[in-house]
């Protein structure tokens, strides 16, 4: 199966690990990621204001590219995923917004949210199946791993619809499939401080500490995330255990550790 792949700006740069491993593992698991031509940055956050049109056009272009290619759009980064899903939802449900966007782009092909958007994890769960993932594991992880969802991956729950926003299981299922022991801790779906780290690093430090301490108390030996910013915040603000991308984990279990 082929997917149009939207890596996003960070994955081309600071979060290359997230990107490279995602591609390698897709090959092993039998699906193809076709990188989108000339993608533009999603903006990192979805602006909720009804009159913000221009900030969402880049994402609509990517969605339209997938529609034109006849493929679902897949993302790996939590932020891209959040922005793309929210924009797609707005194009589906908000006629005024969709109309304004379509007039703006004005390229003869109106878009109303026809593209199906997947997070890489959703592809693993809903299309490949965690059973298949489990079969491909060569190096079971055999450790206590705390999944960290943060906020972008789950909320707003009624729009993202990836998992139960208050009791998500998708990363725990992945960890199990990879031979690890998932550790559920209370703050796994709370915010790390996000972009506020730019303007108020002290506040981000407080938030991040709450998250990793919660994971460590619960017995996690490693934290796994899909968000470059979460990872940055947790590491920078003193996490005592490794913080990895889920694709790194996937690669470690399927391909093994590279030196």
């Amino acid at each position: 199966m082929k997917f149009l792949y939207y890596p996003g700006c960070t994955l081309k740069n600071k979060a290359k690990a997230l990107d490279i491993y995602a591609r390698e593992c897709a090959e092993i698991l039998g699906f193809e990621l076709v990188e989108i031509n000339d993608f533009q940055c999603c903006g990192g956050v979805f602006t909720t204001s009804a009159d913000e049109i221009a900030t969402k056009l880049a994402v609509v272009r990517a969605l339209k590219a997938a529609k034109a290619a006849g493929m679902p759009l897949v993302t790996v980064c939590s932020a891209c995923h959040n922005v793309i899903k929210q924009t797609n939802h707005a194009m589906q449900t908000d006629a005024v917004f969709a109309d304004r966007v379509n007039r703006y782009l004005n390229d003869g092909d109106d878009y109303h949210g026809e593209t199906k958007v997947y997070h890489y994890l959703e592809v693993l769960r809903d299309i490949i199946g965690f059973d298949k993932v489990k079969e491909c594991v060569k190096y079971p992880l055999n450790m206590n791993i705390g999944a960290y969802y943060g906020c972008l991956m789950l909320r707003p729950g009624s729009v993202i619809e990836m998992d139960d926003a208050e009791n998500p299981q998708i990363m725990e299922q992945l960890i199990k499939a990879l031979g690890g022991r998932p550790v559920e801790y209370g703050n796994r779906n709370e915010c790390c401080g996000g972009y506020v780290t730019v303007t108020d690093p002290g506040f981000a430090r407080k938030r991040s500490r709450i998250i990793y301490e919660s994971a460590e108390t619960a017995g996690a030996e490693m934290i796994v995330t899909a968000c470059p910013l979460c990872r940055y915040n947790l590491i920078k603000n003193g996490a005592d255990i490794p913080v990895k991308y889920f694709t790194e984990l996937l690669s470690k279990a399927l391909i093994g550790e590279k030196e």
Partner: protein
Amino acid sequence: MKDKNELIKEQILYQSKVNVRKCMRCGKCSGTCPAYDEMEYHPHQFVYMVETGDIEPLLNSESLYKCLTCFACVDRCPRGVEPAKIVEAVRLTVIRQQGKNKLKPDDIPDIIDGEIPQQALVSAYRKFTK
């Protein structure tokens, strides 16, 4: 003639698409907010103050820049009020004015530490700058 306050309120309600009258003042948004202790005005107060038209203090408050847009309040509100969208609309009211950008290009070099992901800068720019 509507006074300036009323116009701002109208614009905030339009931008956020929030019906502030649905709020039943339970305070769950503020109970769940991770930025509570950093804020001078809290999510439930944003909703209430916009409803009553007491918006001036919000416009001048640092609280606008503490909201993480983590949507915990949006998902957990029993009345579907979506306080985060109100906070965002109030913030936009401020930063769309000339010279009111919270984050300025000159601030950036000090922030870059070699590790910070692009995502952080892009997001912060989008939230704090117009």
